[in-house]
């Protein structure tokens, strides 16, 4: 049974802000070890969908299920403990703490909780993985842009989440950094992690995603492998307008 391996399922997930329906009746499943891309033009509701899953926003309607447990409308702290962790569209580090402490925040309070030496060692191991172990004692202000992103990713990984949400993690990187960034996410994919990523960088989507959900004006307009959806006339129309379809 396919449903048995679903990590995250959205059924009719909807978010209304007053008269505006930002996310309209979203349905999709993310299976174990799958990397799911959430793509679409600006303002199509991708980040809002991510916010519904992480608990930053409460759905107006519909249901979200994490490994059989409904998480619809739970506070973000509970969803984090159940195994959803995320990065933010604009990097959010804890500015007066060291890199190591930032990552320990995830290790101490996340899905799998550790404390003391165990938390520190675990955080160091994760920093090693994202290539930041040497800067463990550094402060936020001393880091380059991609390094702040690496630290935020490490914090999200430190709680050993069931599913990782990346909100435009590759945005704003220069071409060299972008290459390094894609390789890093690729390494996570090879480890068999379950990931939902909101992304604009097409190269990244092609090389990273097993499947994609395409959104336009809050609705899902296509779902399938990157090749399938990117050649879908509806998708081309949503991105480029009618003439090019």
């Amino acid at each position, binding site marked *: 049974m396919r449903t048995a391996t679903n990590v995250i399922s959205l059924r009719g997930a909807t978010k209304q802000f007053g008269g505006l329906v930002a996310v309209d009746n979203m349905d999709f499943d993310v299976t174990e070890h799958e990397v799911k891309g959430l793509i679409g033009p600006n303002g199509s509701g991708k980040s809002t969908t991510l916010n519904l899953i992480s608990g930053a926003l409460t759905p107006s309607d519909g249901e979200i299920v994490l490994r059989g447990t409904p998480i619809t409308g739970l506070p*973000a*702290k509970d969803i*984090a403990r159940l195994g959803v*962790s995320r990065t933010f569209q604009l990097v*959010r580090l*804890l*500015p007066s*703490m060291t890199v190591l402490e930032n990552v320990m*925040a995830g290790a101490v*309070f996340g899905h799998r909780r550790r404390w003391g030496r165990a938390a520190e060692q675990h955080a160091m191991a994760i920093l090693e993985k994202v290539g930041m172990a040497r800067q463990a004692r550094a402060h936020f202000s001393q880091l380059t842009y991609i390094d702040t992103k690496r630290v935020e990713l490490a914090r999200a990984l430190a709680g050993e989440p069931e599913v990782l949400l990346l909100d435009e993690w590759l945005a704003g990187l220069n071409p060299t950094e972008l290459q390094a960034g894609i390789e890093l996410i690729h390494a996570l994919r090879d480890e068999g992690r379950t990931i939902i990523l909101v992304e604009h960088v097409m190269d990244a989507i092609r090389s990273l995603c097993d499947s994609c959900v395409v959104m336009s004006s809050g609705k899902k307009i296509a779902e399938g492998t990157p090749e399938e959806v990117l050649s879908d006339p509806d998708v081309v129309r949503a991105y480029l307008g009618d003439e090019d379809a």
Partner: protein
Amino acid sequence: MRRKDWQTLGFAALLLLVAALLPLTGDGYLISLGVSIAMYTVLATSWALFSGPTHYISLATAAFFGVGSYVTGSWIEIIPYWALLPIAAVAGGVLAALVGLATLRLSGVYFVIFSLGLAEMIRQVVTWYQNQTGHKGTYVLTDMTDSGIYWQLLGLAGLVYLAGWAIGRSRLGFALRIIGEDEDVARHVGINTALSKVALFVVSGAVAAVVGAIIAPRYVYIEPAIAFAPMLSFQVVIMALLGGTGRLWGPLVGVVPFTLLWEVISASFPNQTTLLLGLSFLVIVYLLPGGFVGLYDRLRARRALRGVPA
């Protein structure tokens, strides 16, 4: 625990012991000054336990302090004195929990204003109640001496430092630092932000109430205007910020000079105490962000940069 921790503990215990010798001088003025310093040290340190890491500025100290004073004032004739202190702690803690649950969702300036308003409201309620019963205030007659009060406050200071030290090494302490940095991130890494904040607010409220209960016999006669004086809340904030809330010993470093200065000014220019409060505030904002602790840390960082062993 590491060796350095034991050294710090031992050093703190030694300081406390030396401070405990003060009443042996028999100098009434010194002892009374000691009572003031000990009282503000406990209040400012426990205030900083909550407000330091979270950056929630609470002006509710007077509310808890006043409730504690009234616990002693109202029941000293009925209940043995030693039982009053835990009762005051519970009363202060329960009040803090209620206030915390209702207000800690408020952010920034709204929380500040609410906490100030709370102290005023309780003062009005107590005044109203006393008017109903035909009293203006309450006599607190005990055989407690200034030295006795001083020693109790020192003991309480020891407890507060121990609690602060333990919290600083706990998950709760780490959670509060994260909350102070970015509450959204705190929630998304799985921290129960409301519970963490309320827990610390309860600790600081309970301590302030016990201080009020211990101090009440010194006033002999208490009325709402004394027990709930809003000035107290401001003094505590200024002293804690002057010292700096980044370290456990920070508030103490602010309390000592401020209390001495306050003594001098209220003795010679009794009407200018508010001016001192205002000036101190300006000094903190413009010259000493982070207080003396911040200054100390900056100097140390500069020395480390020059390669001089700090």
